[in-house]
């Protein structure tokens, strides 16, 4: 054993840099300030949702991280690489799908991927295998020889994702990847993003479909008029805003006294009776959803439906933002 070994073993491992680190980011277009001092830390493996009204500064932030915004102030690091001084290295570790993008109408899907594989300077010997893999992952193998122009919007989005996966980037920047997609394509896109999350990719995603982000993201940031107005996990934001969970129930024996008894259960905010169901607003910090179920059973309620709603992100969004746009 060499002399240096004990020393090396005693040294703590070098901390891995954050996937994305933004400090006091400011972007101006002439006199208009689109981003006014945003700071963000996104560790590796996280799916960070960026929510905000149109013109809030989301796309500007994405463009800075994608090395497409030459003029900005502040600091932006991707995997510890400075966007301003090391743009070439950043392009190797990052994949960017812009909010509006076109495709080369004169190419087939396979040619399109080969085009970008060459643009990313992938070794020729490995190109075919990599392209086959991304085509399989995005379920595009059967469309490999189809002209890109003939693909549906959902397919084009998947092809765009396949494109940015070619060089196996650590960070994915997805600016509204689900906009304009039909429900099926949206579900497919969501599942694909979940798969990428499982593969350990760090994803920064913006979307207007809040329900979708709540199902996918580990943390979210709400941005308005160039400022981040809230940031954290969904639960943290709900707790901060004192939001209640909605639980839909259907009871076989809806007697009047049962409604009174249920309303008196500690932790229940209110009970709204609708034609076919009751809607319970629950303080989750006082009572969990499982405890509510037990409490209802204890009150002799014969439940035919018990459906807790996903956290009400729209309410959070509406509470946090004032609807001001640039």
């Amino acid at each position, binding site marked *: 054993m060499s002399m240096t070994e004990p020393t090396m073993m005693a040294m703590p491992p070098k901390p891995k840099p954050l996937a994305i680190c933004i400090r006091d980011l400011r972007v101006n277009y002439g006199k208009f300030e689109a981003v006014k001092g945003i700071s963000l830390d996104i560790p590796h493996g996280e799916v960070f949702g960026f929510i905000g009204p149109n013109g809030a500064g989301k796309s500007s932030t994405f463009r800075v991280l994608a090395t497409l915004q030459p003029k900005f102030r502040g600091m932006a690091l991707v995997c510890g690489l400075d966007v301003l001084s090391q743009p070439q290295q950043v392009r190797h570790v990052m994949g960017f799908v812009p909010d509006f993008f076109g495709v080369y109408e004169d190419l087939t899907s396979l040619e399109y991927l080969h085009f970008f594989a060459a643009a990313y300077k*992938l070794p020729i010997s490995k190109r075919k295998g990599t392209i086959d893999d991304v085509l399989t992952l995005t379920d595009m193998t059967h469309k490999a020889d189809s002209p890109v122009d003939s693909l549906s919007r959902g397919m084009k989005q998947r092809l765009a994702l396949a494109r940015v996966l070619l060089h196996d980037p650590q960070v994915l920047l997805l600016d509204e990847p689900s906009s304009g997609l039909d429900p099926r394509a949206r579900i497919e896109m969501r599942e694909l993003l979940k798969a990428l999350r499982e593969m350990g990719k760090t994803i920064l995603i913006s979307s207007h479909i809040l329900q979708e982000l709540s199902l996918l993201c580990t943390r979210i940031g709400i941005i308005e008029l160039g400022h981040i107005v809230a940031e954290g996990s969904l639960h943290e934001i709900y707790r901060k805003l004192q939001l209640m969970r909605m639980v839909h129930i259907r009871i076989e024996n809806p007697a009047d006294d049962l409604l009174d008894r249920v309303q008196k259960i500690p932790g229940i905010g209110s009970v709204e009776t609708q034609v076919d169901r009751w809607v319970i607003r629950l303080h989750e910090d006082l009572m969990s959803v499982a405890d509510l179920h037990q409490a209802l059973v204890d009150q002799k309620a014969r439940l035919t439906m018990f459906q807790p709603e996903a956290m009400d992100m729209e309410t959070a969004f509406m509470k946090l933002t004032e609807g001001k746009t640039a």
Partner: protein
Amino acid sequence: MIPELPLLRRELAELSSRRRTYVIRFVGAIIVLTTVMVYYNFHMALLGSSISGFGSANPHRFLGAGAPIFRGLVPVLFVSVQLLMPALICGSITIEKERNTIGTLFVTRLSPMTIVLEKLGSRLVPMFTFLLLTFPVLAVVYSLGGVETTFLLGTLWLLFCECLLHASIGLLCSSWFATTVTAFIWSYGLTGLLAVFSSLFAHDLPLALPTPYYLWIAAFQGFNSSGYGNNSLLSQSSSGFLHPLAQMLFVVATTIPSLMVTAVMVLMARVFLVRRAFISSASVMLKVFKSIDGFFVRLNDRTTGGMVLMKDYTSLPLFDPVAWRERSKKSLGKARYLFRILVVMEGPTLFICVGAATVSARSDFSGLRDLLLLVWGIVAMILAMKGATIISTERVRETLDALLSTPLTAKEILTQKVAGMQRLMMVLAIPILSVHFTLLLLNVDFREIMSSPATILIVVWYTLGFILTTFLTMQILVWLAVLFGLRSQSQSRSAMTGICLIAGWVIVSSFLGRPGGYVFEAFSNICQSIQQGDSSRSGSENNETPTMQLNQTIAAVICCMIRADGGIQANEGVLVAVGNPYVEKTELYYAPSRSIHAALTVATVVFLWQVLLLLLIRMLTLRLAPRMLGRFDQESEYHTPEVQHFTSPSGTISEMIA
């Protein structure tokens, strides 16, 4: 009751808020005023020199001088209409298609005819306001006397008809095509075609001509203040005794064919506005080529049972993806499509060259030089358009961001784009080289060459020179066009900017740097003064001194350096100097004193200058590229990413959803 005309209002409001409107108006006014000043000075000087001595200070002697100035000015106005009108109107309908707003227009209560007419009106108003700018100048010219009222009113009417005719051509193109760029090219193409046919039949069938400009030439060029000249259409048709009102009616009657053509084209525009409102913006040329391919495939299937001798090899990009796409996927990049372009251009060129070689008796080569000019015009237009839209096409189709977020630097993207155009340049160079080669064959006596090794060297020099300068000039044009189109957000704007700026450089530099032009004249005057001094000492007038030859050489070098086609002109000087004794000395291009040494010097210096110019333009373009494309680059470091195999823990999307 006055109709509201909402579309016309909107269009005029949009036009008035564009900076381009005022720039065009300003440039146009400068051109018109300069022309008037030149003609005014010229005629005043002529009158001043013709009347000398007693009474020469009498201002009455200038009376009647208005007619020649007017006659010089009006063609400028006609040419301005021909040049400006297509540019103004070609985007009127295509822009609605490009913005996807044409459907919104259709669902309003505006009928298609109303849309067409209001679009027409919206472009005629700026043209008329431009012509109105010249009215004060016309009034001054009219006040000098010599311009008959019929002459003035007839000219105004014909100008109005010219505006209508060219506006209807542009409108028709705009309603037919999907993009402004295509409509722009076809508008100018049809305008040029009309001008060529009108000029061809101008002398034979004046009444049947649709172009008001040639009607004006036929009716008024020989019209003079003292009555009707012998060579004017009015005098020929009426024996010179028509009442002014009758003359005016006669002029109006001659424009009926032109007005009918205008009306037909407006009606066609209305039909195509609806039928071709939602057509795809895919390349028209690519579509044409594909339909031709389909025809030949069917023909081959029928005749040979589908036998294929050489199969299409579909490659995938290995190293230069951008250049690969330009070469193998674009209509102006694929070898078999380029071959068709070559046939279309080279066929007529060779035909004319062979005709010139057969008919010419080694004395008249102006036809071939005109052909060279025409071929270069077409080539320059194609290259300028292609070069200027090289980035804006990506920007408009929203593919630029994806490309810019790859590790390819802006420099690599641009150099690969231009490299993808090399095949096109080679194909376009062939007709030009054919004309040069014909010129060589006609100018040089090969029997004499065999006896003179020095002449062989010069012929080789000329041959190498025309090959190199052709490609050099093409490269300069392409890189300039790329530079001009780098920042532009739309294809039409970048194409127009590229074409107009290059055309402007060619026209202005050719005008300034022509043999006998202002720049050349300045040096010629110096030479003349030296020659006079020397001849007074030596007593001989014809011998050229070395100093004079040097001055002429410098003048030629400067002229060629200014000109866009300077390298080609300087090289032609070598041919003229070495070869044809029948060419008049005054027609010598840039072969000062018919001295072969001077011609070689001029050609060499200009060639080196053009190489330097190309390097400068290329360097400037590549230096500005990252900023203009909206990103920042550092020096490229080759980095081979570690490639992993993508295996999601959950399998493919279908499996995950299942």
